[in-house]
């Protein structure tokens, strides 16, 4: 175990994120990209992800307000969203967006709405958790975030 309590807390947080299924292996990939030259790479990517996807969510929301649903459009947005989510390893969000796209293909508007609500919930939770995580990471110092659990 780490001696630094901050770092220990960080590891606990990280582990729980994986254990609860919020994140998957792709996140580890990101962490591996982090090095001295890019000490905050993961955070940068995640920040970019949240900034970028907020727009997509808004787009989807607006598209869902218009009836009848334009499933092609919805699918297009969700494709983007899913791509981003899978890139950072947001497992649960990705699962919801996969489901959403399936509903889109089958033309199930009801399912889309439901899944989208669920997706937003997952997205918000993930955001909260990751924000907290990175905050602790920042407090623990720049090097700690680069540490890989082994």
């Amino acid at each position: 175990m780490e001696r630094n309590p901050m770092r220990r807390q960080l590891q606990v947080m990280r582990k729980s994120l994986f254990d609860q299924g919020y994140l998957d292996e792709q996140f580890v990939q990101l962490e591996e990209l982090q090095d001295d030259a890019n000490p905050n790479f993961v955070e940068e990517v995640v920040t970019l992800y949240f900034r970028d996807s907020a727009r997509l969510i808004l787009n989807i929301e607006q598209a869902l307000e218009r009836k009848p649903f334009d499933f092609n459009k919805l699918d297009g947005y969700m494709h983007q969203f899913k791509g981003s989510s899978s890139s950072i390893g947001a497992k649960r969000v990705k699962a919801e967006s996969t489901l959403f796209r399936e509903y889109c293909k089958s033309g199930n508007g009801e399912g889309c709405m439901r899944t989208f609500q669920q997706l937003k919930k997952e997205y918000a939770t993930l955001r909260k958790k990751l924000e907290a995580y990175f905050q602790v990471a920042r407090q623990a110092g720049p090097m700690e975030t680069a540490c890989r659990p082994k």
Partner: protein
Amino acid sequence: MDIEVLSSMWPEDIEHEAGKQFNVEKPRGDQDMLEEVTIVEEPTIVDFQHLIELTNYTDKGSSQLAYLVKHWEYKQANAVRLLREELDNLSRQRQESELKKLEILEEHRFEEERYGGDKRSISILDGIYDILQEVPRRKSNIVVPSKRVEIDAEYDTVIYWKQRAMHLEKMLETSMQREQLLKEKLQESIKNLEKQSSPVEELSQILKRADNFLHFVLQTAPVVFGHQDKELRYRFIFNHFPSLQEEDILGKTDVEIFTGSGVKESQDFKKEVIDKGLPAKREITFETELFGSKTFLIYVEPVFSKAGETIGINYMGMDITDQVRKREKMIKLREEIAVQMAKETEFNRTIHITEETMRAKQMLATMSHEIRSPLSGVVSMAEILTTTKLDREQRQLLNVMLSSGDLVLQLINDILDLSKVESGVMKLESTKFRPREVVKHVLQTAAASLQKILTLEGNVADDVPIEVIGDVLRIRQILTNLISNAIKFTHEGKVGVKLYVVPEPPFAKEGSQPVSDGSTCNKSTVNVSKEETCTSMPQTSSDQRGYHGKKYEGSCQNHSQSEPGTLVKNGTKDVSEEQAELPETTMWIRCDVYDTGIGIPENALPTLFKKYMQVSANHARKYGGTGLGLAICKQLVELMGGRLTVSSRVHCGSTFTFILPYKVSLSCDNSDDPDDLSDMDDHGATNDDASADFFQFQQRTLGSLFSSNGSSRTQRLLPHNIGYCYANSHKFNGFSETKEMDFVEDSCSVAEAVEISSEPENSFRHSSDPHNESAICRDNHHWNDENAEARASTRDVSSCSETSRDVDTKMKIRGPQLPPKRQEKSDNCSQSTLNSSQEVSNSISKPKILLVEDNKINVMVTQNMMKQLGHTIDVVNNGIEAVRAVQCRSYDLILMDVCMPVMDGLQATRLIRSFEETGNWDAAVKAGIEQPLPSDSLQPDCTRPKRTTIIALTANASSESADDCFANGMDSFESKPVTFQKLKVCLEQYLP
């Protein structure tokens, strides 16, 4: 006598029955309510003598007095009447008693004369005769009772008569007594009357009462009243708060009594009243030492003598200081409220307007964007159409169409740029660039489209660093704009650019506007001439070739950067990394763009940088343009924290100056060290450009290629060439993708031309190309010539974009030089860049990888992974951009996202494969992607381009099935998200 009968001394008119203004309780007996009130009597100061005079002289006074007198007279008359009545009564009684006495005496005489003879002879028989009947009847109110004398004795006897006489005697006696009593009473009554009704006493009593009332009412009232005579000397004054003694006031005027503001005014006001003879009211604010600042409401009425002359004034003043203050406060408050309301509405309106403006701008931006995409489609299609076989008229129509389309595109680009800057959307990028290169490129491209005999020159001072950090795209845009402007308005002489380092300008610290004065210009000229002398060595052709390669690269960059924010360029990334590591300073570089053109009149200078403003309508007609260029330049310069200014003299020329801050990475100063640039693909070639300090270009008026039609062209171009220049110049601004392509082509053609001139033995293929093109071009010009006059001016202004490609751009490079120390290196470069096989060899050492991906996060992740694996990659965002990137440069590996906007990965792959198979871009052209003609020069082995490995990146969706990927010519596919492992395997498998 009761005084209640008397009225007070109130002026007679107030005693009117109807609408009594004053109601004074009339005291009864000792019921005087004023008794309990203490009345301080000092305040009244009366000049009694004058008061008497007044009552004598004035109408009101005399009538008052007359009334009093009348009243008194009436009372006296009443008393006299009563007395007289009483007297009458008494005298009547006396008469009666005398008569009685007389009767009695008569009776007696009768008795006596009966013997001696009576006056009246009464017959004895006449017994009924009675003298008593002649006595007047007594009034009922007479106190004396008429008593019958009762005599016991027998009638007509002696006793009887005696008794009767005695009786009468008694009666007379009582009568006498009564008379005496009455007389006494009368005396007493008269005395009493005399005592009680003394008029003076009564009057003074009345006066005192009135005075008391007045005091009671006025004792604390903030009023002053008085009387002043004709000379405005006080004769009477009442002031409850006297601050002056009697002798200080009476007989003096206001002005004599106190001084201060308002005194004179009141004096004048009183005079006015005297003059006009009409009562008036006025509010006067006094500011005196005596009682400070007070406002009085003053009522002044003239007093007239009986003859109608004004003999003075009565005046009454009331202290209304508090009221005035309150009123003023109220007014002020009301005003404030009004102002606030006005402000509020103003704000609301402003907000509304701002919102509207924002919306309008957004709308404009959106619309421009929306218009641009289809328009660029139209224009590029039209350009493609020009390459097909057309008859004369068709071609002519097409030319007009193209030039109009170009103009519209330019306009839309300008608008889009402006609205971007204004709405703050415009983002600046920081990239490392070489100012000398930029200057040279801009001049070269300008020279390429030059249509008149002008010398273009560029000077870069020694102290300007080799590399600086800034938004090269925008800077190039500004420079291009200014230079094309300069060329547009210059008919002979030269147009030039000077670049030199200046100390931090004052506006950077204070934000004040600098004025570009002549002195600095002079100084800079000296600078330039010095440089000219010290650096004038012929430049080797390798320079140009090197530039050629760099240009190519640069345009690709422009290409992808033209949509800011949508991609992460690895070059940018590198810079930011370096920024983090290296110390950097800010350096201010001044850039002068000068010309010897028509100049700008002074009165046009203030509006010069305004939107849609040109020097005059005439200029707009003559020279064309939208009037947006300078506005954009200014906004861009200011966005970057600099200043754009202008100084000009009519007919002598203009100088546009912009000063911009640049970041300078200190290590960049030794960038001529090859190791430092090892990560740059073509560093060797660009080195020389980077350090060259002087460039000059001249248009060759009668190039050998165009000798056949040169004369007619010159003739045509001199009067009308401005629009042409304009249409051309915008091609280098690098706004739209289409424009970018033009830019690439232009630059390529320029480079090509240079190549021809410097290496004639090697240029068979190249020179044949321009010949062919020039043939077309000549045709174009020919047609233009024929119709130029007949057509509307818009057509004159326009010219086909096709022509711009093959204008005789054989520029004369007069002052190319190379510092001796780098001679060896440039030799190497010239060898290596002689043909593009260099690129192939390059790719072996360092594989060129292109990522086509629209998702920012994916780009970021993939880019970083590749970097970790030791590769830098180019990134584009959609299929069209991918095709263009391939057109510009050959890649060893393309990672292609399948599902993308604009053009998906499958189609892009198809187009690239089609090119690789056929060696031409016909398929791409069909898909609406413009074909860059000179790109051939970069693909010298035109036999068959090598097959690029294209790996699809799929999201495992059904629409992106592996079958589709393979069917469209992809070599492999990887499912997203990409991982280290996948990439590594890929690279190992597909890169040698």
